[in-house]
């Protein structure tokens, strides 16, 4: 138990952060190289103004036509992504772990609010799963990896909630939480979760082409 904890809390956390950061840098560099090779013209018409215009429009709920066409999906996905980012950084236990390890600290969320946000993440994962099962046009595009990724995202939240509530078996669940969280972090650069990195790049690309070349909107 202590040996596993010490490893997961120490070296494995370091490895997970390193793989995440180096993996992200590698992905961005290879995307850059690919663009240079296949679509070099984008570097000429890239415009920071139109890039930011597109990024901001796609970060505001219901600001794009496609979001207004799918209001439920839009609502769920915005709540999901907000909670997905906020809880890992602003949960009191996590903030304290950052403080312990690196002596940096920031304000944290009340535990009750963080609990609700965690439930929201899990609820949204169920919604996405249901969508993949019951919507024909989505089911058609769904592969096993889509379902596995949803599971990988939900597991740290599920086990973290369990550990936080101290339900039976919570010590093991705490270890499951730490390990699944670290695995998820390492998966981000190498699975479709890298849309986290590429979202601004793709929107910047589209925004530049639509704004600076076609003189049109891309939202």
């Amino acid at each position, binding site marked *: 138990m202590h040996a596993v*904890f010490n490893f997961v809390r120490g070296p494995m956390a370091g490895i997970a952060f390193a793989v995440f950061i180096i993996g992200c840098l590698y992905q961005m560099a290879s995307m850059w190289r690919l663009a240079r090779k296949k679509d070099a013209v984008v570097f000429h018409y890239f415009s920071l103004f139109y890039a930011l215009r597109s990024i901001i429009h796609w970060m505001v709920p219901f600001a794009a036509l496609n979001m207004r066409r799918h209001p439920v999906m839009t609502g769920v996905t915005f709540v999901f992504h907000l909670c997905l980012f906020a809880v890992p950084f602003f949960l009191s236990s996590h903030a304290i772990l950052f403080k*312990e390890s690196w*002596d940096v*600290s920031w304000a944290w969320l009340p535990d009750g609010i963080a609990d609700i946000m965690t439930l929201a993440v899990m609820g949204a994962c169920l919604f996405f799963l249901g969508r993949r099962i019951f919507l024909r046009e989505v089911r058609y595009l769904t592969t096993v990896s889509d379902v596995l990724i949803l599971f990988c995202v939900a597991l740290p939240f599920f086990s973290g909630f369990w550990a936080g509530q*101290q339900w039976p078996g919570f*010590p093991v669940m705490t270890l499951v939480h730490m390990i699944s969280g670290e695995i998820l972090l390492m998966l981000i650069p190498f699975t479709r979760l890298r849309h986290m990195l590429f979202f601004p790049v793709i929107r910047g690309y589209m925004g530049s082409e639509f704004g600076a070349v076609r003189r049109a909107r891309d939202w």
Partner: protein
Amino acid sequence: MKKFKILPYAALFSVFLLAGTMAAFAQENIEIVHDAAFENQTRPPVAFAHDAHNEKAGIDDCGECHHAYADGEKQMGDDSVGMECSQCHYGKPGQGVADLIRAYHLQCAGCHGERKAGPVLCGECHRRR
């Protein structure tokens, strides 16, 4: 009219007062880790049986936990018994409550991790009742 008898109540009150005072001053068995600086506790307080813990852990020197520092150096043979942790680890410029929490966690869970004995997970110390 029945006369109000104060003596039995006074006696009973004295017994509680005495018991309370003894409990407060007895260092034999601290039930809960207490620090006045924790006004609003985020997590449940930590149960801690002082003597049983030290016997099990083989700690004889008070200064091992109640450490005393001067100019960043740990003072061997000196201790800080009777002081609250927050007197050094909280309230100085640039220090927040997170610094006090950090001091407690590194002191307790840090030692447990090194010795591979005792609780290290959040919920193992901060037990919900």
